[in-house]
């Protein structure tokens, strides 16, 4: 199964963008201006994990209700204080935690790459275009201010599909969201047990239905665009009148 021409085009465009972002993040880290954010090294997987199967078609499988998406105050890129539920209900939502200085190709840049491709494919589908949103939420509130998120978002050209870039004011407003989603963030220690540099986390992306219920969670080893799109379409099929009327 090869990628379609529009998909290849989108991936090429994004490839250039993500290269710039990764380079900026790497420079920031090297210069000591960022948190040195890095993901747990994991040599089991290449930077780009290949999908060696044909995913089951939309609607042929169930996406179970895993948990309710947590709610709490967040800041949008303009610094407005809003409830996260504003960004997790009413549309099918793909939410991932990032931090803008992350340079690990298997971490946040991979999330953004997949988001970019998914958004491009969603924009091409009139059934989905108005019904899907993407959310990138920072777990580094100290450095990822609304201005930093706005700067990060500026590199992603708009295409009509909502993509929110959010952060929080303080760790104490962030942590309930992390725990609500079950998203870990750890800090490495030196030999004396003192915090020493990089943050680390398991990459997770959450698929949330229109009622703010988490229906799927993806990680590095299962972050496949085609699977995500089929899952989005599966949720969309649940919401169609014909599907609702079916026994």
């Amino acid at each position, binding site marked *: 199964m090869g990628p379609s021409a529009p998909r290849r085009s989108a991936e090429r465009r994004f490839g250039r963008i993500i290269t710039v972002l990764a380079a900026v993040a790497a420079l920031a880290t090297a210069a000591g201006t960022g948190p040195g954010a890095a*993901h*747990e*090294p*994991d040599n*089991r997987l*290449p930077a780009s*994990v*290949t*999908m*060696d*199967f044909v*995913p*089951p078609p939309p609607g*042929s*499988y*169930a996406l*179970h*209700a*895993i*948990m309710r998406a947590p709610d709490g105050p967040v800041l949008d890129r303009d610094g407005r204080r809003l409830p996260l539920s504003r960004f997790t209900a009413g549309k099918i939502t793909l939410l991932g935690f990032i931090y803008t200085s992350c340079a690990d190709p298997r971490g946040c840049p991979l999330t953004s790459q997949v988001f970019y491709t998914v958004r491009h494919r969603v924009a091409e589908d009139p059934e989905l275009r108005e019904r899907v949103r993407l959310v990138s939420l920072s777990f580094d509130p100290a450095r990822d201010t609304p201005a930093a998120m706005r700067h990060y978002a500026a590199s992603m050209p708009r295409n009509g599909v909502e993509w929110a870039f959010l952060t929080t004011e303080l*760790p*104490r407003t*962030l*942590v*309930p969201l*992390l*725990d609500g*989603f*079950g*998203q*870990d*963030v*750890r*800090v*490495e*220690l030196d030999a004396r*047990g003192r915090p020493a540099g990089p*943050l*680390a*986390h*398991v*990459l*997770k992306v*959450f698929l949330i239905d229109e009622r703010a219920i*988490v229906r799927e*969670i*993806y*990680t*590095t*080893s*299962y972050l496949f665009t085609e*699977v995500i799109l089929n899952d989005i379409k599966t949720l969309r099929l649940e919401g169609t009148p014909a599907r609702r009327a079916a026994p």
Partner: protein
Amino acid sequence: MRAIRVRGTFLGGILGVLALALAAASPAGADETCNSPYMGNLIKGQEDYLYVWALGVKSMGDGGDKLVTIDVNPASSRYGKVIHKVSVRGRGEAHHMGFTDDRRFLWAGGLDNSRISIFDVGTDPARPKLVQTIADMPAKTGYVGPHTFYAMPGRMLVQGLSNAKDGGGVTGMALYSNKGELIATYPMPATGGGDGYGYDIAINPQKNVLLTSSFTGRKNYMRNLGELVKDADAMKRFGNTMAVWDLKAMKPKKVLSVPGAPLEIRWSLKDGDTWAITATALTSKLWLIKPDASGEWQAKEVAVIDDPTKIPLPVDISINKDGTGLWVNTFMDGKTRYFDLSNPEQPRQTYERVTGKQVNMISQSWDGTRVYIASSLLANWDKAGADDEQFVRGFRWDGKELKPAFEVDFYKEKLGRAHHMKLGSKAMKSAYGPERTATLR
């Protein structure tokens, strides 16, 4: 669903040998090279702790099942010593454990009482804390005997061994959120050649494949082994199959005939490899599971372990990080064996050593230089008298020889029977510590 016909009562032929043995067994577990692919926080350097899920023994200490923490960092002054234990009060046939995908919590099951104990190992890895108990698995799922705990993103997939209705081997998997809430259940395939039995779980995300194996029900695994092996009808009720599942859809696609209770399943972690291996306890063989030239999944017998007519009872297996070697413990003769997997179609045993009078679980560090062995199989299947050693032993492996490094005598320490082991590290701790601690569970 595609199916392959399952062979019939092969167990009849080995019944006599088992009856003579009168002390034997089967099941087993996992380690740093055998974790779920969804676990991102692997310990690739020196581990600090060994968590041991131990079966309580009446009148020994508090008599309860407990999670024991051993310091296994050679640089520590407490190396090889028990540094912590937390009892769950009561005996429920403590068996296997599994970390959540973020390695913050360790789920541990009881095969008899079907309780799932959840320990926080993230807040203070040296001092695990019991934070939650799931006691209603039988009532909510109909399955009993939670065996394998397999991390999925934000969830835990739990393989049952039996069912609440008749205690037989027909069972299923239960999917829980990491917060311990039941999400879904999946019955094991009982048609198209399937026997409905379950044991282990192993996932290959890139292939969208979940593999399962099969053992036996509660009526068998809780029975005295000496009596069990004399019961020809009971001995027919062991699993003879593996199942290939569509992981995304969580639907069985094909049943593979793998006679003799296929237990632990290990995928090769080497990039580009698409095969898994298992050992059959009762027929003493290694089986390879891989797609054929047309992409169809097949199971193939590739090696025998010792002399199957002697029923050495291979139990736990542990594959190394690059899929070139496999440890196999055989319970009856207390041997730890190394198989060269350079050609997985033709595994060759290249080393063996008696590591105890009875041995079951085996775990290795990521680099393979440290190997840990535990003794207990099941309370009613362990050997008796002087042969009932209960220990955890640490070894160094230089590629040629297993050299003893430390030992903890679980009876002397009044800890019970040592079963499953998982590794821990103090190298990481939660960011936003004070804020996070306040909101944990």
